[in-house]
């Protein structure tokens, strides 16, 4: 009896201590204060562009696995500037996305592959690159190249304000097609309107060819690619960008977007996607397309080099055609984003490297030949020769067409840190399974978006 009373007293005391500890901690919750943001502007002045100096420097990099371009660029840089060595850690993009805040805060790399940056800027984890941009003359490049990496104070809105990241090159998305299968259905040139694209898909279906090879399994809803292309086909890219950039009052639930989602649903209902598309991962889509299963694939030019190698001469690329014959074309186009940690020890050298990547002829060759995408930098800068008729040639050409039409969009999956995994992916999987309507899909994504932007 006495024992039980004593035990009860002990539990009471423990509870009191725990609560007391929380009450004491209550005045300062977990996490730092917001004041770190102020200290992130760079020291560089407009008069003297920073360099890596003459002494030995070891640059700490945190890059994405499976992108040989970073390795090629850093090795070439060391060849030209032997005092600079690299200490590189690599991870998959999903891992980088989850680690980014903690790594930037606790173990700041000099150069890091970045996911969506607005939340990182909000927490003051990235260096403001405005002074570097001025010193190196980045502000004289075509403005659209840097637009996606500009952010307002506190991380919102995106698309204007200070520069917080840089690209190693910028990629372009559109439709890849299998030339052999295209010839079988009598498609001799890429479709120029949405109706022609529909027609080609219908013919393929009748001929027993899978019209679209796409991924939509697991946590990666790849139907977002054709969906956004359809959105740009029916409407203008500007309101889509406003939504991605978190401008006040922006909505994804617009009449033209509803039409685009309905069109995607028609493709699903017509059986244009593989029956098991909800279980197809990105890698499986690639191997199936390369194996000749599927006429079209909605994807980006980071695969151009790969396709030129694996199915030489057999793959083609075209930009998503507009709904009307005289309509403008648009494409998802985003820089391969890299940033400098706010507390990076060798920030100047990292900025010098980023400038070198965009301006050095050797580096620009690497951006195209290894990276498969258009290099950053001035519009009239050196361009490496590419093989006539290759996929790389057509994606680079598409890049200049998008520049003319001012049709570059960021990816709808990049609007917030969680919108892809938690909203687009499950919603698109439900659309495939016939458990969601186009209208309700957009409403649901919009409501998730508003919750996430608010927080």
């Amino acid at each position, binding site marked *: 009896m006495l024992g039980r009373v004593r035990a009860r007293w002990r539990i009471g005391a423990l509870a009191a201590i725990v609560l007391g500890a929380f009450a004491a901690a209550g005045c300062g*919750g977990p996490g730092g204060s917001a004041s770190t943001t102020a200290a992130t502007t760079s020291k560089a002045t407009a008069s003297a562009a920073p360099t890596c100096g003459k002494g030995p420097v070891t640059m700490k990099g945190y890059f994405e696995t499976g992108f040989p371009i970073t390795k090629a660029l850093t090795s070439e840089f060391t060849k030209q500037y032997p005092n600079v060595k690299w200490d590189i850690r690599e991870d998959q993009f999903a891992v980088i996305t989850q680690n980014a805040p903690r790594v930037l805060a606790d173990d700041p790399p000099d150069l890091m592959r970045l996911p969506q940056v607005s939340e990182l800027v909000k927490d003051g984890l990235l260096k403001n690159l405005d002074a570097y941009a001025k010193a190196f003359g980045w502000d004289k490049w075509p403005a659209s190249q840097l637009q996606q990496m500009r952010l307002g104070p506190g991380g919102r809105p995106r698309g204007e304000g200070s520069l917080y990241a840089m690209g190693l090159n910028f990629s372009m998305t559109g439709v890849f097609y299998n030339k052999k299968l295209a010839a079988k259905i009598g498609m001799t040139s890429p479709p120029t309107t949405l109706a022609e694209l529909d027609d080609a898909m219908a013919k393929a279906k009748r001929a027993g060819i899978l019209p679209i090879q796409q991924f939509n399994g697991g946590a990666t809803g790849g139907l977002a690619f054709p969906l956004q292309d359809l959105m740009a086909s029916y409407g203008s890219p500007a309101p889509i960008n406003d939504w991605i950039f978190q401008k006040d009052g922006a909505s994804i639930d617009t009449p033209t977007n509803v039409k685009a989602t309905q069109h995607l649903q028609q493709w699903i209902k017509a059986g244009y996607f593989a029956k098991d598309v909800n279980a197809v991962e990105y890698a499986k889509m690639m191997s199936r397309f390369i194996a000749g299963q599927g006429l079209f694939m909605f994807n980006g030019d980071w695969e151009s080099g790969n396709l030129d190698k694996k199915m030489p001469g057999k793959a083609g690329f075209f930009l998503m055609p507009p709904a009307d014959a005289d309509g403008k074309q648009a494409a998802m186009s985003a820089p391969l984003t890299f940033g400098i940690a706010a507390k990076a020890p060798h920030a100047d050298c990292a900025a010098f490297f980023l400038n070198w990547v965009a301006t050095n002829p050797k580096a620009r060759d690497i951006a195209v030949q290894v990276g498969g995408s258009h290099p950053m930098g001035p519009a009239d800068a050196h361009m490496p020769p590419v093989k006539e008729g290759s996929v790389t040639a057509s994606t680079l050409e598409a890049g200049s067409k998008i520049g003319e039409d001012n049709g570059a969009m960021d990816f709808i999956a990049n609007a917030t840190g969680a919108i892809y995994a938690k909203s687009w*992916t499950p919603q698109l999987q439900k659309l495939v*399974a016939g458990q969601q309507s186009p209208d309700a899909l957009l409403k649901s994504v919009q409501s998730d978006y508003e919750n996430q932007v608010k927080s």
Partner: protein
Amino acid sequence: MARALLDDVIDVYEARSEPRTEALPPTTARSPARPAGLRTSFWVGWLFVAPALLFYGLFVLRPLLYTFWYSLYRWDGIGPSTWVGLQNYSKVFTDPDLLKTIVHAFELIAFFSAIPVLLGLALASTIRQIATSRLALAARTVVFLPQVIPLVAAGIAWSWMLSSTGVVNQVLSHIGLDGITRAWLGDFSTALPAVGVIGAWVLLGLCTLLLLAGISKIDPALYEAARLDGAGPFREFVHITMPSLRQEIGVCVTVTVIAALASFDIVYISSQGGPGNATMVPGLEIYYQAFSERQVGVASALAVVLMVLVLACVLPIQWLTRDRDR
């Protein structure tokens, strides 16, 4: 964070399932004649426990308290946090997406607990009857093998087998069941059961082995007596095997229920919660909330709720299967 909590729970219950010593008669060491000796041994005892206690506190109790502390804030893991009291808990109980993950966890119990325990009982008593043959050894090894294979490898292998062109569908087509072939992990109605099958396969070996160990402790004389009284294999099973295995069954159910409620790795590897959240479970949701949505507060609140839930499920099981004779 969640793992630490659950490991703690597992530890507690593994400790509980061992024979209790509290019913032993009081020792005579507490004689008033040697108070000094008592004091010394008291401190020596604590000294022996201290290293383990230190690590337990550092890696189990401290994270547990931190999790509870975080659950009272809105926090992105880096920046400043705001005190929100119990708001994160009310979100856990009102957000249909979060509530659904808990429902899924309970659906998984059918696969993670019921199938391995029932099938394990059948297997164990079958193996007992052929205990002396080589076949028994082979059967034991084969059944236990899934426990040895890393879960990640098992998850990947199963996702291949369950894919639209995988072994499962090939076999179904061969026996004329083309109509039901599908991408099992990509279909809304079959994804969760498919994940459950993988879990059942993994846990069956553990249950079988535990139950076999229990069976081998049963006095063979009991079976002999029963047979002399004219009992068949079924009656033997019901009247001798089952009652004698009460404690082992308790351990099996406890461990597998915890595995079902706290599942993470199998789901993460095979379906990542998809399609359309059809296989989203609390463990995965906690991870997504903390590292993808960066809602550390909500993630912590869900982790605390999950811990309480596991305790609420496991305590009655422990009480029911307790050996009352001792």
